């Protein structure tokens, strides 16, 4: 039988060994899945590595795939870590793209660096405001932010479509007859292109550098600022935070705004780095916001770890595009993503519990009782610790 006993102290090495082991397990399980669906696992893995890293240009395109995921991953990580369930990075990213492209179009006469900074500000502002709505509802009216942020994703998507497809808005290109028949956004001036960093054959998108900087910054904020400390208290126990005189409502609102701002900057990066146009269909199909939640969960909501996990998911996404074909539907990579997530999150039980498997005792003996989780132990059991 299997016994679970809560670990009192988690050995340090376990914190690294378990995630590593779970990734290996995921590779094996996904291999079985591949074999079962008629793909040679080894060849597939080799192809994935080729398509995402070793082929010429593959690494750069993995970095491209990774960039928006790092933004949304950070947005989700920072919120989820503080137990604010912002599922709305998707919509906040759309609004960020709307804001950044609007600013980019409006200020096209300004010199490049100023224009780029203005676009970032536009993206951040739009994402922040979009997230502040459910944030305020949560903080002051205690509505469930999971529902409100999720619903606002659809609203944001519709706004985006409306701007390009259903109206003669400022964002829409109305200059040519063909653009009137096949609606599309106005292209931004080339001065609005965010400058990538070229390292040998590898192109690093400007947004990726920005996001990586944010990852480190957020890590520092959580770790060693008063704001981070307050958020940690709010996350652990809102009554304790209130007791300590922390203005919990403002903290919740500000955290939602921060999370939304990061997602919004992700939207700005999509426009500035890659598309240079507001492209509702492309953004919606990519689903960066939802994938970002996966990225954050894999990184256990640690901003620095999210850099690594967004790279891995970026690899998979990129390889998925490359391998896609009649014999290899895109759903296969999605399933692999799911297996990875399942293994990594599921294995967490091994860090928190001591799991032993042993043969059941002889039938005459009384069956041992599974230990209750620590939380329901009687007070007496804890008091017993010599004090």
């Amino acid at each position: 039988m299997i016994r679970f006993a809560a670990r009192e102290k988690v050995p340090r090495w376990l914190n690294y060994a378990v995630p590593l082991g779970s990734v290996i397990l995921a590779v094996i399980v996904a291999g079985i899945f591949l074999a079962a669906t008629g793909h040679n696992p080894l060849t597939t893995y080799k192809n994935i590595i080729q398509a995402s890293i070793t082929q010429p240009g593959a690494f750069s395109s993995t970095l491209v795939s990774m960039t928006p995921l790092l933004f949304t991953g950070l947005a989700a990580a920072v919120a989820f870590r503080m137990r604010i369930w912002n599922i709305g990075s998707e919509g906040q990213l759309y609004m960020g793209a709307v804001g950044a492209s609007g600013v980019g179009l409006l200020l096209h006469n300004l010199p490049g660096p100023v224009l780029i900074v203005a676009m970032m500000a536009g993206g951040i502002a739009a994402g922040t405001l979009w997230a502040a709505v459910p944030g305020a509802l949560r903080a002051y009216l205690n509505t469930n932010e999971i529902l409100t942020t999720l619903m606002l994703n659809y609203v944001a998507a519709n706004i985006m479509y409306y701007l390009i497809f259903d109206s003669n808005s400022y964002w829409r290109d109305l200059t040519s007859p063909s653009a009137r028949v096949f609606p599309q956004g106005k292209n931004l001036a080339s001065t609005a292109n965010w400058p990538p960093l070229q390292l040998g054959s590898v192109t690093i998108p400007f947004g990726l550098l920005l996001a990586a900087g944010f990852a480190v910054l957020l890590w520092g904020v959580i770790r060693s600022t008063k704001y981070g400390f307050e958020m940690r208290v709010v996350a652990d126990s809102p009554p304790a935070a209130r007791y300590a005189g922390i203005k919990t409502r403002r903290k919740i609102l500000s955290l939602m705004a921060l999370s939304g701002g990061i997602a919004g900057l992700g939207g700005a990066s999509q426009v500035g780095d890659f598309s240079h146009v507001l492209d509702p269909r492309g953004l919606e199909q990519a689903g960066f916001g939802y994938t970002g939640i996966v990225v954050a969960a894999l990184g256990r909501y640690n901003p620095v770890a999210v850099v690594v996990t967004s790279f891995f998911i970026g690899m998979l996404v990129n390889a998925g595009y490359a391998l896609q074909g009649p014999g290899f539907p895109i759903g296969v990579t999605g399933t692999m993503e799911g297996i990875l997530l399942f293994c990594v999150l599921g294995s967490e039980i091994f860090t928190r519990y001591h799991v032993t498997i042993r043969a059941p005792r002889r039938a005459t003996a009384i069956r041992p009782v599974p230990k209750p989780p620590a939380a329901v132990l009687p007070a007496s059991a804890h008091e017993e610790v010599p004090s």
Partner: protein
Amino acid sequence: MTDDPTTTRQSAYLNASLREGTPRLVGAGPVPALATRGVTKHFPGVVANDRVSFEVMPGEIHALLGENGAGKTTLCNVLTGLYRPDEGYVEVRGEQAAFHSPRDAHDAGIFMVHQHFTLVQPLTVAQNVILGWSRRRGIWFSPRRVEREIAEIAEQFHVPIDPSTKIWQLSMGEQQRVEILKALYRGARTLILDEPTTVLTPQEVRQLFETLRGMAASGTSVVFISHKLPEVLAVSDRVTVLRAGKAMGTVRTADTDAKSLAHLMVGRDIMLGRKGSSGKTNAAQAVLSLSDVSATGDLGTPAVVGVCLEVHPGEIVGVAGVAGNGQRELAEVIAGERPHTAGTITIAGRPQHGTPWEAIDAGLGYVPEERMGVGVAPGLTIADNLRLKSYREDGHGPLLHAKRGLRNATELIERFDIVARGPKTLARELSGGNVQRLLLARELSSHAKVLVAASPTRGLDVASTESVRQLLTESADRGVGVLLISEDLDEILDLADRIAVMYRGRVVGVLDRDGADIDHIGLMMSGVAS
């Protein structure tokens, strides 16, 4: 409180064993109604019960005495089938029993009255008694028949209660009687009561003891769990003392006294109480003053009604009352966690508008009733918990001073005797006494002028209780005004300079400690006197 317990108890005991029919002989004595044989129960890191053996005779009131954390509750959970022992077994009327659930224990006639009642407030006594009890009847519920049966049992065991009353209309003492009735109705032959006197007034305690004696006289065995010596001496026939999970021995109550029991229980002599009353009700400006303060409870009903109260520097004011008469709400109102609907609150001269940060700023230290989750954030480290309020003083910038936090924590851990591996231990890993010391360390090391302590020693072992009380006294001696809210009347009588008694949200009277009479306070607590 007892007229002559030994003679009456002893005869009931013998009668009972004769009534048992043909008593099988185990050694020389009669067969115990319930016994444990070498019961051992482990929890991660602790041995809650270590080879505990004890016997309860039919018709006997058997006290299990021990500090909080001595393993009493665990033992009861083994007796009632909630836990299975790792080693040893439970014996019922001479036969080994293997309980797989509380239901098995019920079938063997073993019932427990928990410290926290398990009654449904809007239902009647009768409905509560049969709730979840489906045995020996069909699907039809005949309220009148059940009520009649209950009334019969109530009469037989002298448990006066009207079966058709709704629970919310009853006092805590009466609710406890319902719990006892519930067990008797279901055929209890052994009744286990876990700290049954905590929620009762002194008068209700006496009534409970009468009931228990009546039950014992008719052959029911009673296991009475308590850490209060006077009660154990007053009601029990025999006492088994538990200490650190071990049974230290069983003695006849008639052959022992408080001192030797206390020694057995703690392993050394104990001294409680405030040594030498400072007795200063000085004329200085009050540091905490409430005038006509009212507030509503969680259900929107009035919980604090027109309370006027003053606490002066260096003074301990005790708030006595039966649990649930507005004491918790009063503490929350002062701390700014619950808005007051009327009146004014002034802390160190600064009027309060009902926010926690305002109260903290003005110099309020607060030990909330709920320590884990309110007073202490369980998932944070000791160091973080210690600077839960003082982190704001880490310079003016946005950064935390990590090193100072750790240094400060190390110092406080030392000074307040917090037993932990180090400042980075999570608060949830601490025992109850250490959590309370952690809380007090933070509240007392700040520059508080007023300290509100709500039930600060509840659930603590004797040593921790002693140290917490000492800390409260010391801070009063340093000039802090202390408002001590406690359901333990003895504690208030020991520590407080003045005693305010609360009943239904009102302060029905404020007494000087020296003129206080426990019976009078008891009457005030039940709203009879003022």
